């Protein structure tokens, strides 16, 4: 999936219709962030498993593609996975394997890495689900309704609007280059020259972005924009029974998990063990 393709794919997902898609953006945002926060503060892998199952269930009822969702989770995993990979070697605990140069793996380190990995998977699944059931503009609107400062939400709105435009622009530049037989991976052409052309493309994108910024500011000014201007938000969407059901189920699940985590999970071996 290239940049342009993945953005369009994501848009297709957010355009689908499901009970979760049609829900108020604020509720989706708060509850999914709540799941991430709960996952971060939980210390049992079993809790993560239940949370992940719940998220998979949400993906199922929102008709979002499993393949796309997990591909995106897998693509994002290496960012945190890199830090997790070191944990078995640096965390103090009972040594279960010793290697050359004093390298060893501890049991506590392994458990800690497993917990971090499960937390990361839950967090990424939540974020991927949120971005698949809420168009980007809805997420910004939700942040705005929840009190995000006007300037930041304005910047985010502009970013969303022009993100697609600049992807199109980049696409056009790449087409123009392809039409004249440019291939960045063509080994018959000097490496330095290919890098130079890619540099020109990036520079051109920066210049166009700068020019676009200037023109957009003029068009905003011509419609009376000032530092005192307010921002519009959709007031028609109200929180209804669907939202209350979603809130209820999620809170109930978390409450049940907390009770089970306190009284039951620790009896289930290493999956229910408290990892600190």
């Amino acid at each position, binding site marked *: 999936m290239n940049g342009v393709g993945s953005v369009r794919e994501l848009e297709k997902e957010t355009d689908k219709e499901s009970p979760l898609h049609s829900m108020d953006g604020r509720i989706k945002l708060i509850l999914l962030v709540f799941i991430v926060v709960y996952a971060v503060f939980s210390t049992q892998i079993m809790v993560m498993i239940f949370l992940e199952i719940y998220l998979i269930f949400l993906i199922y009822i929102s008709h979002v593609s499993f393949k796309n969702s997990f591909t995106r989770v897998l693509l994002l995993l290496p960012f945190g996975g890199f830090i997790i990979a070191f944990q078995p070697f640096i965390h103090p605990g009972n040594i279960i394997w010793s290697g050359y140069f004093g390298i060893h793996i501890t049991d506590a380190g392994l458990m800690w890495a497993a917990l971090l990995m499960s937390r990361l998977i839950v967090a990424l699944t939540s974020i991927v689900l949120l971005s698949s059931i809420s168009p980007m*503009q809805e997420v910004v609107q939700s942040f705005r309704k929840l009190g995000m400062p006007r300037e930041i939400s304005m910047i985010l709105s502009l970013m969303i609007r022009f993100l*697609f435009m600049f992807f*199109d622009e980049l696409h056009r530049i790449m087409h123009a280059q392809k039409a004249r037989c440019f291939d960045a991976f063509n080994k018959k052409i000097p490496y330095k020259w290919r890098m130079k052309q890619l540099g020109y493309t990036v520079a051109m994108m920066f210049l166009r972005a700068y020019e676009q910024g200037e023109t957009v500011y003029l068009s905003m000014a*011509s*419609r009376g924009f*000032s530092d005192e201007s307010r921002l*519009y938000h959709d*007031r028609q969407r109200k929180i209804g029974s669907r939202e209350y059901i979603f809130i209820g189920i999620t809170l109930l699940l978390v409450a049940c998990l907390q009770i089970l985590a306190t009284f039951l999970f620790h009896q289930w071996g290493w999956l229910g063990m408290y990892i600190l």
Partner: protein
Amino acid sequence: MAKTIIQTENMSFTYPDGTPALHDINIEIKEGERVAVIGSNGAGKSTLFAHFNGINKPTSGLIKIDGKPAVYEKKELLEIRQKVGIVFQNPDDQLFAPTVVEDVAFGPMNLGLSDDEVDERVEEALEMVGMSGLEKKAPHHLSGGQKKRVAIAGILAMRPEIMVLDEPTTGLDPEGVRQVMEILYILNRKDMSIIVASHDVEMVTEFADKIFVLHDGEIIGQGTTEEIFNDCETLYKAHLRPPKSAELLHLLKNGGFPVNIKLTVGEAYHEILHALGSHAYHNLLHLVKDDLHHKLLHSLGEDKYHELLHLLEENQRDITSS
């Protein structure tokens, strides 16, 4: 008598980098007029328009909006910008909000209106341009014509008295052009003054009743559509061409035929019919492969067809004068 809504007096403008853009501009636009500013690329049309709602400040000279010299203070600028709405050439420059509704609401929100008033204006503006039902759409999902109409709605929601459009038909297909022009005619019938910049002389011929010719930052000609397009010398100097029909009649005139210059295709046909006689006209229809007029000529007969052209001409005159 209609009041003057925009007037400039010896207005000049030089960009901060020292590039002179406008020189000694003297124009007067009255309420309810349909005005076109024509000129080639780089003539200064967009720069001139940016003065109409206070984006650019003249380096020297004066611009009066609604009889009052423009004041470049925050409160006065907001008033000017509410009165004079500018639709930019490229709708992507204007549509910066992530959804249609947010973009159209942008102007009214800046005017400090209540939320209910904003909603009402957004609904009204979108309905006026035939874009109701697309409120939640993202601008990048719209066609070129739809983007243009949303851009117009964004200005209409501010309820301006004067609408300024920079190249309103550029990049649109014929259907898109028709829809945009229809909106402009409707707005003009509601007494809104419309000012367009264009080098599309065919569109300008149909639309404008007053034209300014801009070349290298100077007004080199102004007058009615007939006056401007009869003055080929000025047009060529501005790197423009007269409409095709006028060009054809100019050629005939220079070839010694007794014709007057007409600007629309219908009028030009009629003029040629008078000048050449029906036989030559009939041959001309064959030559230009005009099916519609040819069929009419055959089915009605020469006399009745001629009568029809007279009726159409009178009808056109009535529409223009009303």
